[in-house]
């Protein structure tokens, strides 16, 4: 078999295995709850019947592996169960009084918003940081390099909400250029949406550019010091040719890893930024549900975040395998 194919299959298999274990952890986390979870959830006014009904609805009367299988099968089909909030002991037997909603109905519109924000950030941040990183590597130890590096270190050390508040003060409050509340709805037209999302996207850009730029710089410098680049330079090739034809093929792997790593980081950063700008995304939903301790929603959000995280890392590895010149030309 071609070495690329076998490496790819191995990597994708590994990704699936880790996805399985992650879903297992997320599912079984509910088992860690101290005390009887059902009785605690239904509160003081519970009766024998409502407890039994709720237990049956959650499937707690079945063994663990069957519950997990049911959960994961319906999760794959997009059904994460229904929320705890709005469910009460008195109404447990009267479905019409039950204001509990399905997790999917909460998650779906917000998922689009979150991906919109992350995507917009990526479109701004990735080209800027690659450009800054490559130029900083080319003119390393110059004043430009040091200035870029120092500002990168500063933005890395700042918590996201600090950057967000500074932006709100200047762009939202003093010079009212952009709204500091990003209250988008599903009916917001595209350009209004971009305008409303600008401030959270800018915050995330500032936070990720620093990191991405530093890593790109390190990856390029690492490459430029290798003997074969020196050889190409000694042959008298022009600088641009050395970089594009000789350095870049080997740099794709680290660069794609850096981009994926930071897109994955965006997912985490998105939570705080969404809360600051009251942006209706998955992160805000998750934080709200954590405060309300609405565990099915938290599980659903965690699964979505973990899935994206694992997929991004998988894609990065696949790209670095495909572009690896050593694997492309097997001996």
């Amino acid at each position, binding site marked *: 078999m071609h070495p690329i194919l076998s490496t790819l299959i191995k990597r994708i298999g590994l990704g699936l295995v*880790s*996805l399985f*274990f*992650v879903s297992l*952890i*997320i599912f079984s*986390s*509910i088992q*860690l*709850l*101290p005390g009887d979870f059902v009785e605690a959830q239904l509160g003081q006014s519970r009766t024998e019947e409502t407890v039994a009904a709720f237990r049956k609805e959650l499937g707690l009367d079945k063994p663990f592996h069957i519950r997990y299988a049911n959960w994961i099968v319906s999760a794959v089909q997009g059904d994460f169960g229904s929320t705890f909030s709005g469910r009460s002991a008195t109404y447990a037997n009267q479905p019409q009084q039950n204001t509990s909603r399905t997790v999917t109905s909460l998650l779906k519109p917000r998922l689009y918003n979150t991906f919109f924000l992350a995507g917009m950030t990526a479109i701004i941040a990735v080209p800027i940081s690659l450009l800054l990183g490559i130029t900083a590597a080319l003119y*390393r*130890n110059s004043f430009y390099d040091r200035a870029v590096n120092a500002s990168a*270190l*500063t933005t*890395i*050390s*700042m*918590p*996201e*909400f*600090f950057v967000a*508040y*500074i932006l*709100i*003060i200047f762009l*939202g*409050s*003093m010079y009212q250029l952009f709204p*500091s509340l990003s209250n988008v709805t599903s009916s917001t037209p595209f350009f209004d949406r971009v305008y409303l999302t600008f401030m959270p996207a800018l915050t995330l850009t500032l936070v990720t550019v620093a990191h991405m730029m530093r890593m790109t710089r390190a990856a390029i*410098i690492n490459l430029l*010091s290798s003997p074969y680049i020196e050889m190409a330079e000694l042959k008298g090739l022009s600088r641009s040719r050395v970089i594009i034809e000789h350095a870049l093929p080997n740099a794709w792997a680290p660069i794609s890893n850096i981009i994926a790593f930071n897109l*994955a980081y965006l*997912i*985490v950063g998105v*939570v*705080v930024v969404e*809360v*600051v700008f009251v942006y209706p995304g998955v992160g805000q939903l*998750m*934080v709200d*549900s*954590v*405060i309300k*301790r*609405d*565990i099915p929603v*938290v*599980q659903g*959000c*965690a699964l979505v*975040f*973990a899935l994206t*995280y*694992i997929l991004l*890392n998988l894609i990065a590895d696949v790209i670095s395998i495909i572009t690896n010149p050593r694997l492309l030309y097997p001996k």
Partner: protein
Amino acid sequence: MSISNNQYTAKDEVASVFVKRTFLQRSWITLKKAPFTAWLGMTIVLFYVFVAIFAPLIAPYGEAEIFKIPYAPWNETHVFGTDRLGRDILTRLIYGARNTMGIAVLTTLLAFIIGGGLGLLSAILRGWVDQLLARFVDVLMAIPSLIFALMLLSIFGSTALNLIIIIAILDSTRVYRLSRAVGMNIAVMEYVEAAKLRGEKIGWIMVREILPNILPPLVAEFGLRFCYVFLMIASLSFLGVGIQPPTADWGSMVRETGELIQFAYSFADYQFFLIPILPAAAIGILTIGVNFVVDWFLYLTSGLKDEHK
């Protein structure tokens, strides 16, 4: 031919090369060569530690003491005014240093005890213990740690103890990877083999044979991990699921006073935007300070002169 005092002798010159210096003298010589950023970082860190330790002596009022006027303007009695419940903001800032940093230090220590211990254990024992732990860590690291922490906090509830344990366990995965990797290099050395042959217990081998040799990277990692944990706790508190009131903490202070920002229309309204910015800046400045010190420490211990100069 008599020997005069200023006559050249080889012995004098050789003798002057070997100057017996005390630890303090050696440290001072290293410190004198430290760059400006390292000095800045050390000053910041020492200042924070001082404030954290002597918080009750420095702070003008009690941690949760409530005064009559909420949102009092800045004046002599309340240097930075009061918050919406009428608590003195300067006092809360000073106590925040103690609470936020204390919890972060405890968490990082716990993470190092768990992660470092298991990492060294894997490095020495190898075999199925190593495989099992490594795979388990892989799975834990496949979930973003903030998301994982949020999920666990929703199940166990946000108490300070839960916060410390959850973040320490999630963070110990990184420590595990590092200590396992550097421990592997030492565990194959002859003197470790010799210690095993003379029948030393595994605890002795970990602490007395391997640990001293991998200390520099671990110390640097401790600084970086501390920053990470510190920012994570601040973020969680900012989200309202971290350190709970009435404990003063910088993250939740930003959250509680954040709405004041909308009243800052110009620089003349500096009080409005500085109140939430002060605790946020306190977080940022400490992280920068620690980063500066760690950078310098890495430079010293690795002997690397950045890239090629």
